[in-house]
């Protein structure tokens, strides 16, 4: 499993570590951990490679819950929920861009997935009768969102980590993956820098599963952890794998003003309301039926419009008012966001409304995979937020992302377990040269003459992306934005960290992250410019209507000779025909 090789003796000093596993899972969030359990239980030798300790993954920050049609709480008219209703809400929420076969599979598996976590020990919140509690969420016809107070991701992630630990599954912690390695048209592993030592490792495996999460940090107003830099999407792009629907970026309606930390949709699910600076419940103008619980794209646009038209507060925010819920309900159901509001905005939601504004939250697009998580290359799979399978289409419903991570973490692992029998042992020769290539690349970066700060470039990128590819988009402005991004790419190629150490060089890691982020930013930009319609989260001022005739299709982006090449593929319909979306 572990072999210490000396690299070519000419340059002598660097010793190279090569590791062998059947399956390498990149990422230790909910998807990666769930897949690792499945792989381990099948008897295969799997390992997790993660740039942070698994418990520091962004899954831990998920608040509101996980959708499943358990039907534990009847609907308003006493009717019961079903997976079909869940699928309908998901497809409608996606503005009909989701692939309906993948949606069906997710919704059918949802109840078993919530139960599965319970069986592993997750402490779900409960109803009086002892059943798992469910709350209403945006765009859903039933109280369908199972929750553990407002710390659902934390509870689920700790549960899965406990199971991973119990099985002694190897975790390469704080390893930043530097490349995917291909041989004869097939993925045979990856290289990674061990952050604490600076040493480059090679991981040879029959299968690599990408579970690396989203790319929210290409935007400056984001709820995402600082580590969500789209590393997996950038690695896939470099290898030649298409990225799908990358222009669809979710802006969450309620992020805390100042830090953009998430204020869960569960706050509105529990009865919280949105109020503008004139004291109006403005959602009645935008979504008269669903009001504050319309889907996220609708509510985010509405808030942004209120602010732009002068009905927000100075600085650009509105109020999320929970005061009428009472102290007991807030303390029981929403303790986490109460603490966040107190810690970071000095506001206690029991007494005062919380200042909120929309902020980047989720990446609907990602690595192009078919319904089993496979990419165009044998041996390379992707699942969770880094992938686009596509269950969220143009707009994800709250409560569906936790669900996707665990459902497809398991299902894609099942497919891997089946497929791996057909794959021969990879050839290790390629890995040595791949490791050497990364060593040379890092040497080249650190050897550059000092230039302007890389941090400034990152700041500019995030600002450009939010200002020019944010909630409201316009062709001309986006063209300017794309030019700026390309200039930044050019600029970065001359920059270097001041710190020249190999061990614990976090600026070097940030440099490598930024390289990838600028590529992802370009893909988002190109996709958004070419999509001349408004659908879900993608709102064009110059093309305000949805155009099913021309754009009911997925965008695919590949890297061809250094530039982004776009093509399209059809959406899988079947259950529900596209209709106008009214809430």
């Amino acid at each position: 499993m572990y072999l210490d090789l000396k690299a070519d003796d000419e340059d002598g000093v660097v010793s190279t570590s090569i590791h062998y596993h059947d399956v390498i899972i990149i990422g230790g969030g909910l998807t990666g951990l769930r897949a690792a359990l499945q792989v381990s239980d099948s008897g295969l030798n799997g390992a997790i490679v993660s740039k942070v300790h698994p418990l520091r993954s962004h899954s831990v920050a998920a608040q509101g819950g996980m959708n499943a049609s358990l039907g534990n709480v009847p609907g308003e008219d006493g009717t019961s929920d079903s997976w079909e209703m869940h699928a309908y809400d998901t497809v409608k929420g996606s503005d009909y861009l989701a692939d309906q076969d993948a949606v069906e599979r997710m919704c059918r598996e949802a109840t078993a997935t919530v139960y599965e976590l319970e069986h592993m020990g997750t402490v779900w919140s409960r109803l009086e009768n002892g059943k798992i509690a469910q709350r209403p969420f945006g765009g859903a016809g039933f109280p369908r969102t199972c929750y553990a107070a407002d710390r659902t991701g934390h509870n689920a992630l700790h549960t899965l980590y406990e199971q991973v630990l119990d099985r002694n599954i190897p975790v390469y912690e704080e390893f930043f993956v530097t490349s995917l390695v291909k041989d004869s048209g097939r993925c045979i592993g990856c290289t990674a820098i061990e952050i604490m030592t600076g040493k480059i490792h090679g991981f040879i495996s029959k299968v690599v599963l990408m579970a690396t999460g989203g790319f929210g940090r290409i935007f400056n107003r984001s709820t995402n952890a600082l580590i969500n830099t789209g590393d997996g999407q950038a690695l896939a792009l470099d290898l030649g794998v298409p990225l799908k629907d990358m222009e669809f970026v979710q802006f969450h309606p309620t992020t805390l003003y100042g830090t953009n930390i998430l204020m869960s949709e569960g706050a509105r699910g529990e009865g919280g309301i949105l109020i503008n600076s004139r004291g109006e419940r403005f959602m009645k103008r935008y979504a008269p039926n669903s009001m504050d619980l319309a889907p996220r794209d609708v509510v985010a646009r509405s808030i942004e419009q209120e602010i732009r038209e002068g009905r927000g507060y100075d600085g650009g925010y509105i109020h999320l008012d929970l005061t009428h819920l009472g102290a007991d309900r807030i303390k029981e159901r929403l303790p986490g966001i109460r603490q966040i509001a107190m810690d970071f905005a000095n506001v206690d939601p029991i007494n005062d409304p919380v200042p909120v504004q929309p902020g980047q939250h989720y990446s609907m697009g990602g690595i192009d995979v078919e319904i089993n998580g496979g990419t165009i290359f044998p041996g390379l799979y992707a699942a969770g937020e880094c992938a686009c399978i596509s269950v969220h289409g143009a707009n994800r419903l709250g409560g569906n992302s936790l669900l996707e991570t665990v459902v497809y973490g398991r299902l894609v692992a099942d497919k891997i377990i089946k497929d791996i029998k057909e794959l021969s042992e990879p050839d290790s020769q390629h890995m040595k040269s791949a490791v050497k290539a990364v060593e040379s690349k890092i040497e080249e970066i650190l050897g550059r003459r000092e230039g302007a700060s890389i941090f400034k470039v990152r700041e500019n990128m995030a600002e450009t992306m939010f200002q020019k590819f944010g909630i409201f988009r316009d062709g001309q402005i986006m063209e300017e934005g794309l030019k700026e991004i390309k200039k930044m790419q050019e600029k970065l190629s001359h920059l270097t960290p001041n710190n020249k150490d190999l061990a614990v060089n976090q600026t070097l890691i940030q440099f490598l992250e930024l390289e990838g982020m600028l590529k992802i930013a370009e893909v988002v930009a190109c996709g958004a410019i070419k999509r001349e319609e408004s659908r879900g989260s993608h709102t064009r001022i110059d093309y305000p209507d949805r155009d099913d005739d021309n754009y009911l299709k997925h965008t695919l982006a590949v890297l061809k000779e250094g530039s982004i090449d776009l093509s399209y593929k059809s959406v899988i319909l079947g259950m529900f025909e596209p209709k106008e979306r009214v809430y």
Partner: protein
Amino acid sequence: MKLKVYRYYDGIEKPRYDTFKLEPTQGMTVLGALFQFQQKFDDSIAFHYSCRGAVCGTCAMLINKVPRLACRTQVTSLLKGELKIPLSPYPALEETVEWNPEEEILVEPLPHLPVIRDLIVDMSKFFDFYKYVEPVFKPGDPTPEKARHMDPVAIPELELYTNCILCGACFGSCPVDGSDPDYLGPAALAKLYRFCIDPREANGIERLKIADIPRGWWDCEFHGNCRRVCPKDVPPLIAIAKAREQLNQEREKIGDK
């Protein structure tokens, strides 16, 4: 204001402190100040970060001689002297370096764990102790088809312990962990207690026995620092006191027979 930061890396003889001057802004956290340090002063500074919202537990460090999450700690509050927490003394809290709390913020690595570089400590020991208590659900019944029912009355006490984010602030605040390198520490014991009180567990009390050893339940001296520094209000002291009581009761029962 000034940020006074502990620096250590392989190859230097002994740790030093770097001082960096910056303008505090509304809402700036110690983590934010460390990013300023990295971006404007010295990009070789090393520190852990991830969620920046006090939920992932990766940025626990010693700030003004109190173990805290850097991302949750507001610099203006520190400068105003608002976040003082009285702690039972231990060697890491001693004044080893001069600093002026009115205009300086002192940032040092989390105590009781080996320093890798600057503010990054090796958490292996902390996680070894966590693993030692076998923190995994062991239900009493065979896996049912659906979910088990749970009385909602049981949830609030369980949540006290499931809320732990394993940041290690308690470990770095515990005088016993400082003097006895083998003591399992507050986080691991609180985690074990979480499983003991889960009504779905087979025989929760039996699980207490894994820490019924000198370096387990019995090593705690009830200083209470753990509770005071916990960013999530987890009460390891209560867990430890209750576990001892239950183990003592069981001993008495056996003694009676």
